[in-house]
């Protein structure tokens, strides 16, 4: 297999710099700046706790992303399974010793940083499955053994995260995994069958949900049933977005946000604030920025010669897309409220860390796109 490696295994530093996807990089920088601006607004037009911390995280994680970018993607291939198991171990550790907050136990205190391993699992699952399908023969993709194994790989972290409990992240991990299955070519009928099975077993799943999760679904179906309680968030979120109108209320002028009507405005509902202040124009602009990022990642995937890179890029691109869709659908009242951050925009270190690692790997895939990786 070394035969392929020589093609461009070791690029010089200058070559690497030339190979960077600058459009993607600029988009990421732009998004980071927007996120800082919005964070500044959530602090009421002041550089306070959230703005400072978000800025610090970006300052640390942006170079990290670049370091990863210059790091050959083949190493990610090599250590993908190790990475996966490491995160699994962290998840197990967290379920015993993790920090508790608002009824769930999903964090570990690293003293300089509070890590949420489930966020990293979003990347780990893509890496692992990308490696798995990179190595497996195409004839075996639809074999029972393979599918069973892959389902175990997906379900293991999903169940660990669900038990934290953290429905939102676990769903996103599962979806990220399933996307790889889809891209890898698992037969469509399996997806159709499991979808039908899923619909049939929905009542049973619901019966296993925690009361607060059931409430969220009920509230989603009819937010006005309890406008000051469970429905409050979604009603206020819709008011904020709707009142933004075409042009928005203007930077730092989002009344819903600075008068504290918006819940969780730093994290899951960050888009609400953005949309209130920048309106339809701003929202669509942000969506376009995200779309460019996703298209660039897909493009990198498409130009990559190695299937590992390809699968990772496609998987990561679609995962980001799903994160965005889930988050926006939630704040727009199209989906029940599940905790799901908006990539880069939302305040939260672990999510940002995972996203930045992901971007780093994608950039690395671009730099090394001519390289093949031995299965």
């Amino acid at each position, binding site marked *: 297999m070394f035969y392929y490696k020589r093609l461009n295994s070791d690029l010089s530093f200058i070559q690497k710099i030339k190979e960077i996807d600058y459009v993607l990089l600029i988009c990421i920088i732009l998004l980071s700046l927007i996120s800082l601006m919005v964070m500044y607004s959530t602090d009421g037009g002041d550089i306070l706790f959230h703005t400072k911390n978000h800025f610090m995280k970006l300052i640390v994680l942006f170079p990290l992303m670049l370091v990863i970018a210059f790091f050959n993607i083949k190493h990610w291939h090599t250590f993908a399974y190790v990475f996966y198991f490491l995160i699994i171990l962290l998840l197990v550790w967290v379920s015993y010793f993790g920090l508790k907050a608002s009824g769930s136990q999903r964090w570990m205190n690293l003293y300089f940083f509070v890590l949420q391993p489930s966020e990293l699992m979003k990347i780990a699952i893509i890496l692992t499955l990308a490696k798995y399908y990179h190595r497996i023969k195409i004839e075996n993709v639809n074999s029972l053994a393979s599918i069973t194994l892959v389902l175990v790989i997906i379900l293991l972290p999903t169940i660990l995260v669900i038990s934290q409990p953290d429905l939102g992240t676990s769903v996103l991990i599962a979806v990220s995994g399933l996307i790889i299955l889809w*891209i*890898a070519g698992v037969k469509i009928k399996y997806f159709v069958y499991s979808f039908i099975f899923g619909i049939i077993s929905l009542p049973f799943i619901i019966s296993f949900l925690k009361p607060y999760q059931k409430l969220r679904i009920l509230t989603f179906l009819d937010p006005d049933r309890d406008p000051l309680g469970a429905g409050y968030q979604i009603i206020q979120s819709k008011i904020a977005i709707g009142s933004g109108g*075409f042009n928005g209320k203007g930077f730092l002028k989002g009344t819903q946000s600075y008068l504290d009507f918006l819940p969780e405005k730093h994290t899951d509902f960050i888009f609400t604030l953005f949309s209130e202040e920048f309106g339809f124009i701003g929202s669509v602009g942000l969506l376009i920025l995200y779309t460019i990022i996703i298209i660039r990642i897909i493009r990198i995937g*498409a130009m990559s010669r190695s299937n590992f890179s*390809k699968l990772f890029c496609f998987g990561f691109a679609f995962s980001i897309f799903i994160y965005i869709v889930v988050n926006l659908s939630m704040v727009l009242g*199209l989906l029940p409220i599940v905790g799901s951050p908006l990539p880069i925009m939302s305040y939260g270190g672990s999510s940002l860390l995972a996203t930045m690692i992901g971007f780093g790997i994608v950039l690395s895939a671009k730099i090394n796109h001519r390289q093949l990786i031995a299965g």
Partner: protein
Amino acid sequence: MIKQNLGIRKSDVFNRRMFILGIAKVFILAGIVTRLFSLQINENKKYLTLSDKNRIREWKLPPIRGNIVDYFGNIIAGNLKVYQLHIIPEQVENFNYLLVRLKTLLNLSDKKIQKITKLKNKFKPWDSIIVSENLTWSQFLKVNNYLYDLVGVKPVMTISRNYPFNDVYTHVLGYVSQPNQEEIIKNKIVQERFVPGMKIGKLGLEKKFENHLIGTNSIQRYEVNAYGKRINQLEFQKGSQGNKIRLTLDTEVQKLSAKLLLNKAGSISVMDIYTGDIIAMYSSPSYDPNLFLFGISQDEWELIRNNPLKPLIHKTISGLYSPGSTIKPIVALSALENKIINPNFKVKCTGKTELYGQTFHCWKEKGHGFVSLKNAMKQSCDTYFYEIARLLGVDRLNITAKKFGLGEKVLGKYFDNEKQGLFPNTSWKKNNLGRGWVLGETLITGIGQGYTQTTPLQLCLMTAQIANGGYKIKPKILVNNKPLSLEQAKNSMKFDSLHSPNLKLFDDPKNIKIIQEAMFSSTNEIYGTSYKSRIDDPKYQFAGKTGTSQVKRISKRERELDLKLEQIPYKDRDHALYVAYGPYINPRYALSIIVEHGGSGSKAAAPMAKELFKLIIDRDKLRKKQSNFEDINI
């Protein structure tokens, strides 16, 4: 090579699957943009409203009531700046400490402190508590000096009702005070504009014209956060002061009336005989309406309520009195009009008349001898009026009395507590007492005793209508637009009577003239009952009729004793009455005076008329000069 082929094949699968995902993505994205569009563009208005509803809260301030002014534009019910002390609990660091400080600073009672603590627990922490509604200037200064030590205390300047003439107008104006639940619910406008601290009319014109006087709320719009805390003021929408009311009353005459009736129970009414403008209506004793503004204390209230002179009764319109001899002009007029007698008809007064074994006394024990109509009026001979009443009959007398407004409300719609009084006739007695009329009752009705009950304002109106030549006038208390001049008023009065004959109260103008002359002699000729109170200067000269109304039947023994006023218990003393009009040549004003338990009309009531006419006629010039009338729609 095989592996490579496989690899290529694999990547084909990847690309194909990714393409399908890509299409799905486009649709999903389109869905999200559509949703954004529908929320932000289509439903923008709805959500903008909701967002404003979220963040903007309105605070209504109490409306400022319209002024009530007298005929000359002097404010008799106005508004005054008052200094209040508010506490905003959420800003207070140590509530107990603050209360202790305030207690010593303002001498608050323990009860008051308890009340504040109670209020604090009742309201939201950002709602201000009114600690004191009416601080004196020195208290206000003190609070301001120690403000650094009183965190959370807010000295506030606000507007409150004020009655500058204190008790002079109380019965007319009434007063304002905090409304109770029922009053708020009953009046839609009050309900709409109600805010704590607002006051509404509880009595009198303040109550009657509540909706006219109330004014609109000023509105402060604040931006509030999700917890309801005020962040900043967005707008101050100034409300408009309530509408003005202008009265026909003259403060100077009103004040003189108050002075004359000081420490007495009674009433004075003065009326323009052509326009019906009421110049004064004062009921004594009165009380200070300012006491009610900030809640009257129990002690003060008890003092008013238990006063034996009954300050709470508006005697001018709710006090019912036997008219006594003041009815005699009507009795005489009725007899002349019905052609029962002619002016030369004479009766011999021996001091008493016997009828069916019952004795009817004249006030003068020795009798007046032969008296004509004029002399009978002048000396108020009872025997003469027993006789003509007997000849006339109560039913015919009743018709004349009714024409002149006795037994009917004078102002009607303005005061809820106005009484209509009573002038009896035979069918009234049959219907209400179930017994037949007795001739003896006709006799005592003829001297204004018996069943007859009149209000002081009715007597004033009656006198005014005699003075103006016998035309019905409509008494009024409000000035709605520019008043008529004397000529216009006279002409319109006569003109109106041509069209509606019931406005003309006589058949033969000579009869009215005879009565007027008789009243003149009663005041201005020797032996007249009010001769001592006359004014010789024709400018002020007036004509009147005294009256003394018994509150209790005089026993034979008492009659023989001939007690002095001071010797009779207050409750049993006669009411003193006087009705008059002036100036005698070209008359303009009529008045009625009643002094409860004042003794005789000539001694207690008539002298007041002398002082009143001097003032009233002096002020007539000013009254005519008065301009700047605006149209007021009520």
